[in-house]
């Protein structure tokens, strides 16, 4: 008894904790292995889910899932750990101030499929639009390729989009065209430097510390600049991407562009 470490109550708690841990582990294992519901990734069901969403959920979660009174649904980290079953249960039964939807089973799963589609890699989702027309627009004079690259061609002023279909989602692709400041890709602040030797240097800031700036010049050249050689720095924080594409481009243009961009990284 002298060496007894745990009381009976503690042991009981540990037992319960162990059971919970086992259940959680089992659930995790089940999640990993569970077959997806057949509606997941199905474009017709996703579209049906979108209509349900606009009718009942968009008021709190935003028309494109970006959040409002309710949390954003396009940020994967916010709810990613939830299983499809958990999500279905939350929709149907509600949680906190979110009311229960009490939808017929299929409509509930359509909604789950739509919400899942908001964070799926764009390349895995079907999207409306004419990708060929989007490609033409991307590479046209004064088009996107003046600043962005795909497959080793294009400009350096904006993010390389060669793999964007894998790293972004359909909602984010669309939003980044019409609202470039909503989510800035690091490494695209513009810096105008005056160096102590009197020369000027401009480029995009790939990295910035108190001791060194890593610039990418217009031709793609990288230039690592020690801070002690800099006289002044002017930083342009907002995205240098024009913010007026929402009015410059038609709705079809944007849809076509998204359709083209979602294919990048599909190989």
């Amino acid at each position, binding site marked *: 008894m002298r060496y007894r470490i745990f009381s009976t109550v503690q042991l009981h708690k540990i037992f319960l904790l162990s059971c919970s841990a086992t259940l959680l582990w089992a659930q995790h294992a089940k999640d990993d292995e569970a077959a997806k519901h057949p509606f997941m990734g199905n474009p017709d069901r996703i579209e049906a889910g979108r209509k349900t969403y606009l009718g009942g959920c968009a008021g709190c979660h935003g028309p494109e899932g970006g959040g409002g009174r309710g949390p954003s649904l396009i940020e994967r980290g916010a709810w990613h750990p939830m299983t499809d079953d958990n999500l279905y249960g939350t929709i149907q039964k509600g949680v906190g101030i979110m009311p229960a939807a009490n939808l017929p089973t299929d409509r509930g799963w359509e909604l789950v499929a739509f919400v899942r589609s908001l964070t799926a890699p764009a390349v895995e989702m079907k999207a409306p639009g004419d990708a060929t027309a989007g490609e033409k627009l991307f590479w046209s004079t004064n088009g996107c390729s003046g600043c962005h690259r795909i*497959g080793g061609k294009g400009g350096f002023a904006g993010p390389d989009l060669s793999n964007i279909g894998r790293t972004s989602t359909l909602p984010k692709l669309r939003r980044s065209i019409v609202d470039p400041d909503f989510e800035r890709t690091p490494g695209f602040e513009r810096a105008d430097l005056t160096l102590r030797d009197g020369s000027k240097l401009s480029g995009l800031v790939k990295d910035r510390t108190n001791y060194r700036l890593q610039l990418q010049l217009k031709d793609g050249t*990288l*230039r690592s600049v020690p801070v002690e050689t*800099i006289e002044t720095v002017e930083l342009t924080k907002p995205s240098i991407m024009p913010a007026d594409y929402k009015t410059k481009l038609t709705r079809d243009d944007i849809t076509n562009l998204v359709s083209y961009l979602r294919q990048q990284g599909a190989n």
Partner: protein
Amino acid sequence: MHRFTLSFYLLAATAWAQVTFEDLRQSPNQNWLTYAGGYSGQGLSPLTQITPENAQNLTPKWTFNVPKAKGLRARPIVADGVMYYTNTNAIYALDARSGRVIWRYVDTQAKKEAVNRGAAIFGNSVYFVTSDCFLVSLDRRTGGLAWRKQYGNIKDGVFCSSAPVAVNGKIIVGTAGGDEGMRGYLTAMDAATGKELWRTYTIPARGEPGSETWGNYIEYGGGATWLSGTYDAATNTLFWTTGNPWPDFYGGDRKGDNLYSCSLLALDAETGKMKWYFQFTPGDWHDWDAQSWPILADVQYEGKPRKVIFHANRNGFLYLLDRETGKYLKSSKLIDNLDWASGIDAKGRPIPIPGKDPTPEGNRVCPGVRGATNWMSQSWNPATGLLSVVVLEQCDIFTSSSKTPEPGKNFAGGGAGPAPKDAGQFYLRAINPLTGERKWQYPMTGKAEMWAGVTGTVTGVLFAGDDDGHVIAVDAKSGKHLWHYQTGDNIYASPVTFMVDGKQYVSIANATSVFTFGLFEPVKSVPVPPMKIK
């Protein structure tokens, strides 16, 4: 004012010219453009800033903790002040002066996780392989994906880890997986498009020449190509070593030499056709892959100039071969604890000592399964005539199983490992490869767990890792300790040295991070420049 700006742009344009085949032939210089440093695999840098006299002033310059790293194997490549470093299914472009990330690419499609050994560079692209055998081409300025092309299927038992080799518009990639049953091969892919140009299997198909040296399981015979190769531009020849036959520790069902396992292959880089081969360990039962460097050198041998290859093999012998024909010239013992063969005969074939095969009960054999040396880099210095190589003096208990082999089921036909209280010891040894004379050795304390390589400079400094997690500098002529730094973990990778902005650096990864060192400079107070934010 304009003059400054214009001149800067011109300088920048020069510095960022595309990496050409000629640049690769000139490496290593200020850059370190291939996994081995240069095509010859000599592991000798021409940089002269760090010397035996000042090596004591080396200090850490930066550390990069590689995300999710567990046992880093990769050796960096460095071009124009940018370091490219790979981990499992990921590559990072770092400012080689500061270690700060410029871009990163994480392959989210890969369906397997395995170690990765490094990258290749050519033109404006940087290349690496995913564990599930896709060759990935990225824009080296942005990390943008140009393409990813499959050259192997994990369902066939292969996986991929080797650093690609860029040769005149082709990217050569190898395969791993020889311990579980697969058929090894090398593939050349077009550097611009990823189109497969040739594929050469290291194990013949049934009915092909060499297949008569096999019994059963030739279809899963192994012969992996998981280490990078070397290259002779003068003859357009690739030199690539092959892994063990499968099952590793039981050869009863594959009696014969098991060509072309445990061999060095000389291949025409244009076509992939074999020019010659040399098999170090015929019909191997001890998992003694030939994966160690085939170092290309031009030497005076028996009074005449001769193009040769040095090869320190896992089986315990150091070989000297004719580079043009593959003819065996000479061998010597790399290690003292070598008891499976009494020597090498005139044709280069080992003279086995009976009773040294693995047995069901276990049989103590030297060297152990990890071999006398392994993938760790070596350094050849023509000026001193010394080959510096890290060796392991260790014996293992080898067991065998005659159970019916099952490919892809983690079955190796047995196993091997040291007996309790019989751990080995690592040494850094300098050997004259023409005579076998051991000039000096640097013994290491530790648990015989590391896999660090060695890199030299023409000034006579050797950089290496030791078995306690230190990066060390040693005098190449005498083996005298010059400097050391504790990294806090085991080292399984090999060092590189390069120069940026007039300063020479040395880099090496331990299990989780890349460390970079340079000569001491007092840190000056850095003013914060006035910054306007629009």
